[in-house]
């Protein structure tokens, strides 16, 4: 099933998508997306959707269980609030990719911009290239893997959750600390990279929460002043 975006509004495209899925189509190609926003939001069935080109903001947002491929680059907030499923972006991703996801996997083969993985609550974000400023900001749970370099303030105010970085980290955010990856970590990472055919570095740095900001302690008021 093919849907061509040319001369259609976003509303029409999404309606056609929903109608196709309701009719039992579970393999849909969306042609000429050309940077439109909000494409394929609210996909709740385990269908396979390919966007043949670049998309705008919030593509595949609020998804539960579908499998989406973006054969181009994606704008801000891609896959935001995903409950389950997969989103694979061939190109680069704009700010806030995988924002607030609770499950599933988001893969960016290129680079991710600022605030990648912001407030993740589960799931996995895998970035083949670099990520920008304040990635994993306020991350609560889940796993983020960056094969390339990470920008400033990585994992600032992270609660739980883990960030693995293969390249350089420009700076760690508030209360983010380095830890040694375990053998189990290494195995999981290898499997993850292989399953998406991404060649990553041999070793990764592991970033977790220092837990100093979990509870307020008067003795640590200086740390809080810095964080706030």
């Amino acid at each position, binding site marked *: 099933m093919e849907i061509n975006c040319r001369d259609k509004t976003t509303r029409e495209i999404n309606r056609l998508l929903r109608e196709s899925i309701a009719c039992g189509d579970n393999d849909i190609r969306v042609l000429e997306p050309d940077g439109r926003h909000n494409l394929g939001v609210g996909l709740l069935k385990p269908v396979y959707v390919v966007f043949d080109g670049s998309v705008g903001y919030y593509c595949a947002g609020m998804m539960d269980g579908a499998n989406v491929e973006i054969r181009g*680059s994606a704008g801000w907030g891609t896959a935001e609030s995903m409950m389950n499923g997969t989103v694979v972006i061939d190109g680069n991703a704009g700010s806030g990719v995988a924002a607030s996801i609770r499950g599933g996997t988001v893969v960016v083969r290129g680079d991710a911009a600022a605030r990648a993985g912001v407030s993740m609550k589960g799931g996995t974000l895998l970035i083949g290239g670099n990520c920008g*400023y304040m990635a994993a900001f306020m991350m609560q749970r889940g796993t983020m893997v960056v094969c390339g370099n990470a920008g400033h303030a990585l994992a600032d105010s992270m609660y739980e959750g883990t960030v693995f970085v293969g390249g350089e980290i420009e700076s760690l955010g508030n209360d983010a600390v380095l830890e040694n990856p375990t053998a189990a970590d290494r195995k999981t990472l290898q499997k993850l990279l292989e399953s998406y055919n991404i060649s990553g570095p041999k070793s990764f740095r592991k970033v977790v929460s220092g837990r100093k900001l979990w509870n307020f302690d008067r003795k640590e008021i200086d740390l809080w002043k810095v964080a706030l």
Partner: protein
Amino acid sequence: MCGIIGFLDKTGSRPLGQTLLTMLDALSCRGPDSAGVAVFGASSPFWIVQIMLPEQEDRAGAVKKILESARDCGPVINHQVMEAFVRLEVDGTIDPVVLEETLVRRHAGLEVVSLGHSLEIVKQVGSPAGLEKAYSIGKRQGSHAIGHTRMSTESRVDLSHSQPFWAHGVPDLATVHNGHITNYHKLRRQYEQRGYRFCNENDSEVIGVYLRDRIAAGLSLADALRSSLDDFDGSFSYLAASADSLAYVKDRFGFKPLMVAETVEFVAIATEEIALRKALGRDFVSLEPAPGTLGIWTVPSKVAV
């Protein structure tokens, strides 16, 4: 929200006006209030002066008086009345600061919207389609241009408050801004104390005043843009264009989006990729610059205009 666009034609192979119009139209939902462009056309030995005519009954009379005031400063080669503007071409030996001061002092409500050897700004309240109807943007030619669609968040919706803004006092320098300069009031107070005049209450205007001040202090345009990263608070993706350059500046937190595409034929910048795709097709990759960075391109001098 606002949308900004920039386009630099490297090889003279793209219809500048049509490209601008398509990009503006694609961003009109981001900025439904007003639309405007700053086009750099063929370089003239004269000063091209775009004057906003104040609202009044006797327009012809007002135009006559404006021409008299301009002639007091020097020869007026040509004049045209177009919708809300009077476009003058005046002798290039006239001091542009003196010309602007003379006109503004003598005619209440008058504003010089742009001045330069190649810069022309046209803007108005309404949509890009309306702008096209009034000023035939699609037919305009030039080497490069910037444009803006406005969603007013802080100040009045009228022509004076809409963008692009000319950096008063600096011929051929224009800016477009998406975001909010949060130390605008503090900066404005400081500049007014030092004698700089503001034309309206739009915070974006301070960008041009800042650049004028930094250039007067001896900085190059590139260095002035770079220092603005430290001196402006708030959210900004803004573009600056001069007679021979086009530049973008992105705030340190990456609050406002911006996409940049460069090929051998052009440099194209837009708040959203959808504008680039609509105007320029699919044969290029567009990238979002990192927060806290700027980029500047020189207009190739051999582009035939």
